[in-house]
């Protein structure tokens, strides 16, 4: 190594720099660290107050007065007692017992020390009392001030010996005072060097003393005795009172955020206060919280509360979170709590760590301090947080850009950070070239548009809200807040956008990209040469085109602009590099008809493959929708809306073009379909208006809308437009159909709904006046109303837009009616034409009475004339006419003579108002004969007769009898009563020539004053008519009384209910034969329907009640009927009234019925009874169905 090398090595600068470093190190160590090593308790010195010595010889108590000074505080009284051969019992001062500190005993020689904290000031007696007998006592009382009242003494030390010097070594300290007590029994006590004798006395032969010496680490208290002697000594150090300085939390500032370069800010507040006196804080440590908080601070200082006074020196650019203050002005402390501040100053943006920075949560408290007094207390553990915001905001997003002609368009979305600076928060740097430079905006700076920063130019400084999409033009036509100086076409420019927060922090920037302006594709305008109303104009909303199929509906659009380049050639107009777009829809190449550098013409022909309506999808153009891509660039967009187009209208089959009727649910005449393009779907807010009225939509698709012709269209308005507004997904554009729609007449009904020929009828409907003026007369084929059967109405009553009133023409039949107005035909609506011809009569009836309650059955006979014929008449739905019943009655064998027209032979009843149904009647007087008849109805309407067909009664043939007229009663002849018996008679008569009923009335009174069936005649007996009706009549009368005369008459009624009574007045008579003892046979029932009789006999008791009195029984027998059962002995035994039993045997075999007639000899007449006993054979049984007794007897009537 050469000298110059050493010289280099030990150059003056280096040496000085080393010295400086060492100096700084020592300075740091001694100024910052030593104070901590030097910390000790701050103590006031103990001060001696007064001393008094008392002695006594041969006593057991010593009393002497000691005066404690009044001016001192923190007092302590020490009494040193020297005795021998005794012990100290107690020591009091002013009557207050003192505490023994220590006692040293050397045989008989005793030294004892006592203390009293805070003794009363003034003169008080010290009383030393010994235990035991008296002795020599020396006591020295010393008082002190400034003594620690809590621990006034150190550790007492005792020592004893037999020597010429007494000593005791006491551990003490500066500021303390060591006091001792010594006792010896010989010599003279002489206080040691450095000690201050506070008392020395002799009591008898006892030597005692006390001294003090300022405290030190170790203090030996000694006395020279003068000769070797036994001694005892006690020493103790008196401790001074302790004084402290207390640290406490102040009123801390609130949390806040400060920006780099911000002003000095309060971080923490603390207070200092001494417990006594004043103090001086000569050192202080602040500990910051928050990771690396110190990096954000340029200055930390301790000031007075108001910041006016700086203590210590400000610590600049702290190197750690522990900041030590020492040198400089110390903090004065007094017994008054005083607040001080820790204050911080953020670094400037420039001195802050480079982006992305951090956010520093700075907290800080005083964690240590240096003072004379003892340090006590703490600062707050949860201080305020001062945030030094050096955190970059989040960067811009969604960056993009496009090149233009001497300009670039740049897009971005601003930072989403909450503290994004809404003023000048976005700064765009532009670098000329294909890459961005390293320049960034200076932290905390506010950029200026157009300013240079190295190679970067501030292109834009934009104020906006956070998270806001922005699009700005840099260059020609530049946006506000951006440069407007034209950029150089062909020159690449690179852009980066920076985001700034409210504390001036920038992010690192987001690269937008590189864009090269060029003489680009620009659309300046376009014209719709097909529909010029849709030409482009600035910010237009009514511009664009309709799309449609073929030359009839497509539209031609010519775009003008620049940069379109050379004609790409047929077939190349719809490529990635050359195309025309409306929104996302790229026009098919085949629809592009011309292309030059400044003009392009294309068609909107949906018949071209790729450009059909379906190919447009949901695209309906819109703002900036039209773009041209050519030469590698894409133009900006011009507003271009795709309008709807109604290209055709479908009307119902059979309708003329562009015609329809108002809607009706009954047919489809009122539903038309609009065909076209770009209607939008679904309907949404779309609508269709027809002749000014909103139409109800049946279905809606983007090329097809089925609508109902509104019924709200005025009936006098027959022609008008169809227009529609686009539906969902569109801009609500409209179109009006090119042609005019005609609303044809529609018949909706008739008033009345049906009618007969000649009847007034109003044809109701709408749009009946197609020319706008209603016809004043019929004109065949032009203005007319035609009924079915091609019968035109001829009665012209009135004609309005909604009703044509006419009359049902003659010859019209039920069927469709069509109205024509100006040759435009209505719909066909059926009208019911009613007939004036009455319906065939029904319910034909023939009656005996006018009330029509006594019907004559078919073929029946009437006995009185006239009879009454009836029919039910009706001419359906026809009013205003009269219905007349007509009848033709002819005898059987005479043919009906009436035909279809009027008939003089017909009998006619009174008329009834139509239309019926109603019953018409007529009386008919005929001679006795048999008849048939027919009926019809005559309808007279407007003096015209309409006849129903003839209907024969009951549908009977002409040779069948409908009714018979018979008005003559039958003739009665040959009435005879024959030869009456004793109890009976037979009456006979004849109605020859006519069958009739048979009836006899008879009684014994001979009066037939009543009417038919003996009514009103008490004795009369009437026999009901016999059937069938006969010519020869015979009636048997029985139960007559014998020998009695009876009156009678006969009656016969023919089928016509003509009755003959014979005799007409009076009566016939006959008399029965007389018989005094007539014989009778009477049967009495005994038993019947018995259960099976078998085994034992069965007994039946019965009575015989004769119907006559005084009877004589002539004979009697029992008739037994039953069923015989198989088995056993086939025999039955019978007896009555215990007469001899008769046994009746039967053949063996199957069961069979039996009948036994058992003669009885004697019968008891009631009230006496009889007994029948029946005994079946052994093992046999039978059922009795009946057992009767027959009695033949005679009596006198």
């Amino acid at each position, binding site marked *: 190594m050469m000298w110059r090398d050493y010289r280099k090595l030990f150059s003056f600068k280096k040496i000085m720099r080393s010295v400086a470093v060492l100096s700084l190190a020592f300075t740091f160590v001694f100024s910052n660290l030593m104070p901590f090593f030097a910390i000790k308790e701050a103590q006031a010195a103990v001060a001696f107050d007064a001393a008094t010595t008392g002695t006594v010889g041969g006593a057991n108590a010593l009393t002497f007065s000691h005066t404690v000074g009044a001016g001192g505080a923190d007092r302590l009284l020490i009494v040193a007692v020297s005795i021998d051969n005794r012990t100290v019992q107690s020591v009091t001062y002013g009557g207050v017992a003192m505490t023994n500190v220590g006692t040293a005993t050397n045989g008989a020689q005793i030294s004892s020390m006592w203390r009293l904290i805070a003794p009363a000031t003034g003169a008080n007696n010290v009383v030393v009392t010994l235990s035991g007998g008296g002795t020599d006592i020396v006591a020295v009382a010393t008082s002190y001030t400034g003594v620690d009242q809590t621990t006034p003494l150190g550790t007492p030390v005792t020592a004893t010996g037999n020597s010429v010097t007494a000593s005791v070594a006491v551990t003490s300290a500066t500021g303390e005072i060591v006091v001792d007590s010594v006792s010896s029994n010989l010599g003279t006590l002489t206080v040691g060097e450095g000690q201050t004798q506070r008392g020395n006395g002799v009591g008898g032969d006892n030597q005692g003393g006390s001294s003090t010496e300022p405290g030190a680490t170790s203090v030996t208290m000694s006395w020279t005795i003068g000769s070797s002697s036994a001694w005892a000594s006690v020493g103790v150090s008196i401790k001074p009172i302790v004084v402290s300085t207390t640290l406490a939390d102040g009123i801390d500032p609130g949390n806040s955020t400060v920006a780099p370069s911000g002003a000095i800010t309060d971080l923490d507040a603390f207070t200092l206060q001494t417990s006594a006196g004043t103090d001086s804080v000569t050192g202080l440590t602040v500990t910051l919280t928050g990771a690396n908080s110190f990096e954000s601070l340029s200055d930390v200082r301790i000031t007075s509360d108001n910041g006016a006074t700086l203590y210590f020196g400000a610590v600049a650019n702290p190197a750690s979170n522990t900041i030590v203050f020492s040198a400089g002005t110390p903090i004065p402390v007094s017994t008054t709590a005083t607040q001080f501040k820790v204050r911080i100053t953020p670094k400037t943006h420039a001195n802050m760590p480079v982006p992305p920075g951090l956010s520093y949560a700075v907290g800080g408290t005083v964690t240590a301090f240096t003072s004379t007094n003892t340090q006590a207390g703490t600062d707050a553990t949860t201080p305020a947080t001062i945030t030094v915001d050096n955190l970059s905001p989040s960067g811009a997003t969604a960056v993009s850009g496009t090149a233009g002609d001497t300009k670039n368009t740049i897009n971005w979305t601003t930072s989403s950070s909450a503290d994004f600076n809404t003023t000048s928060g976005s700064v765009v740097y532009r670098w000329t070239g294909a890459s961005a430079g390293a320049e960034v905006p200076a932290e905390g700076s506010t950029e200026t548009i157009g300013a240079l920063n190295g190679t970067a130019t501030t292109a834009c400084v934009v104020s906006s809200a956070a998270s806001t999409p922005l699009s700005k033009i840099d260059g020609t036509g530049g946006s506000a807040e951006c440069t407007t100086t034209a950029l150089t076409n062909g020159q690449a420019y690179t852009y980066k956008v920076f985001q700034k927060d409210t504390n001036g922090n920038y992010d690192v920037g987001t690269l937008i990209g590189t864009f090269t302006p060029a003489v680009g594709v620009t659309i300046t305008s376009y014209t719709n040469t097909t529909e010029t109303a849709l030409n482009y104009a600035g910010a237009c909303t009514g511009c664009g085109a309709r799309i449609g199929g073929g030359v009839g*509906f497509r539209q031609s659009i010519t775009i003008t602009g620049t940069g379109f380049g050379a004609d790409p050639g047929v077939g190349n107009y719809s490529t990635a590099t050359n195309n025309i777009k409306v929104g996302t829809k790229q026009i098919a190449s085949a629809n592009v008809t011309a292309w030059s550098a400044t003009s392009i013409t294309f068609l909107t022909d949906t018949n071209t493959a790729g450009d059909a309506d379906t190919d447009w999808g949901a695209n309906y153009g819109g703002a900036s929708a039209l773009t041209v891509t050519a030469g590698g660039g894409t133009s900006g967009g011009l507003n271009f809306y795709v309008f709807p187009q109604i*290209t055709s209208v479908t009307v119902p089959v059979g309708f003329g073009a562009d015609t329809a009727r108002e809607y009706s649910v009954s047919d489809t005449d009122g539903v038309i379909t609009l065909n076209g*393009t770009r209607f939008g779907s679904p309907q949404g807010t779309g609508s269709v208006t027809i002749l000014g009225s909103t139409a109800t939509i049946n279905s809606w698709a983007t090329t097809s809308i089925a609508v109902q012709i509104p019924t709200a269209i005025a009936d006098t308005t027959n*022609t008008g437009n169809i227009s529609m507004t686009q539906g969902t997904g569109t801009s609500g554009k409209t179109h009006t159909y090119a*042609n005019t729609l005609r609303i044809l007449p529609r018949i909706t009904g008739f008033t009345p709904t049906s009618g007969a020929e000649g009847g007034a009828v109003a044809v109701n409907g709408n749009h009946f006046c197609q020319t706008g003026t209603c016809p004043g007369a019929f004109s065949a084929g032009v203005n007319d109303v035609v009924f079915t059967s091609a019968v035109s109405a001829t009665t012209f009553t009135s004609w309005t837009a909604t009703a044509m009133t006419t009359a049902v023409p003659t010859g019209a039949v039920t069927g469709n009616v069509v109205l024509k107005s100006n040759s435009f035909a209505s719909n066909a609506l059926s009208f019911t034409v009613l007939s004036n011809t009455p319906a065939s009569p029904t319910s034909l009836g023939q009656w005996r009475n006018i009330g029509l309650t006594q019907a004559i059955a078919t073929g029946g006979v009437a006995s009185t004339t006239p009879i009454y014929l009836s029919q039910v008449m009706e001419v359906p739905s026809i009013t205003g006419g009269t219905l007349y019943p007509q009848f033709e009655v002819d005898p059987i064998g005479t043919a009906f003579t009436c035909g279809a027209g009027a008939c003089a032979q017909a009998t006619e009843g009174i008329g009834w108002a139509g239309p019926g149904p109603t019953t018409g009647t007529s009386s008919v007087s005929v001679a006795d004969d048999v008849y048939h008849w027919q009926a019809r109805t005559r309808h007279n309407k407007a003096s015209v007769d309409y006849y129903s067909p003839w209907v024969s009664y009951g549908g009977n043939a002409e040779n069948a009898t409908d009714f018979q007229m018979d008005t003559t009663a039958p003739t009665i002849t040959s009435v005879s009563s024959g030869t009456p018996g004793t109890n009976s008679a037979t009456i006979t008569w004849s109605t020859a020539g006519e069958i009739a009923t048979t009836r006899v009335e008879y009684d014994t009174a001979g009066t037939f004053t009543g009417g038919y069936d003996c009514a009103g005649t008490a004795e009369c007996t009437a026999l009901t008519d016999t059937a069938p009706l006969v010519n020869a009549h015979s009636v048997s009368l029985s139960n007559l009384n014998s020998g009695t005369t009876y009156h009678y008459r006969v009656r016969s009624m023919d089928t016509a209910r003509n009755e003959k009574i014979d005799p007409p007045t009076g009566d016939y008579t006959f008399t029965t034969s007389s018989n005094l003892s007539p014989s009778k046979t009477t049967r009495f029932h005994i038993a019947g329907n018995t259960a099976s009789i078998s085994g034992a006999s069965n007994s039946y008791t019965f009575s015989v009640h004769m119907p006559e009195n005084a009877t004589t029984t002539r004979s009697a027998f029992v008739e037994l009927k039953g069923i015989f059962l198989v088995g056993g002995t086939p025999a039955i035994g019978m007896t009555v009234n215990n007469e001899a039993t008769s046994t009746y045997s039967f053949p063996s075999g199957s069961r069979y019925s039996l009948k036994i007639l058992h003669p009885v000899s004697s019968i008891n007449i009631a009230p006496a009874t009889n007994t029948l006993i029946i005994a079946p054979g052994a093992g046999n049984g039978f059922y009795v169905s009946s057992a009767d007794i027959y009695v033949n007897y005679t009596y006198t009537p």
Partner: protein
Amino acid sequence: MNELIKKNKKAILIICVGLITIFLFVLYFDGIREAGRSALNIERSINENPSPRVLEKTTTSDGRFVVPTGEQIPLVSNRKVTIANGKTLKGAYSVALPEALIWSSDAKLVYIRSLGTVSVDGISSGWEIVFGSKIKKEGYVVSVIGGLVASKASTASKSFGYDLPKNWYDSGEAIRSISSLPQFKDATISGLNFYYNEDGKKWGYAVSSSLGTVSVPVR
């Protein structure tokens, strides 16, 4: 027989393969028309000779009513229908117009109506072209059948014709304007008129379709 089959086994196999191939070809290209593969029925020609109508009178509104004539032709089909010796509506008009002008120098068109089948190209074998003349105060019906004037006759008419739009598109364009719309995918046409809408004072085509009468305005 078995011996014969054995001897001609190879020939039989070839014949069978050939027949199967032909069957599959026919099935594939002609079996499913809608598949769009019809190779055997690409085109069908209609040869018809409709008769002219005798009109006692005509009105303008008659032109609105399309009388179905000829066959019903699908608007969208893979099988093209051609009309032998047919003409488009404008083509027939150009044939009839000289005759009308001979009839009356001020002859103007009242309406044109198809008389035969109308193809989707708007071609029909027959057209009825009705003119009117204010001078003659009557109408004139020229029937063009097979591309030639088949008949011409005066008729009563209160319509004396109307001016035609310039460059009016032909019947084929009118049909294509509706055939391109999806709602007419399955529709057929059976007649076509060129009519004058007196209400709107505009000409238009009226197409008789299976969906109804479709009016297509002419601008």
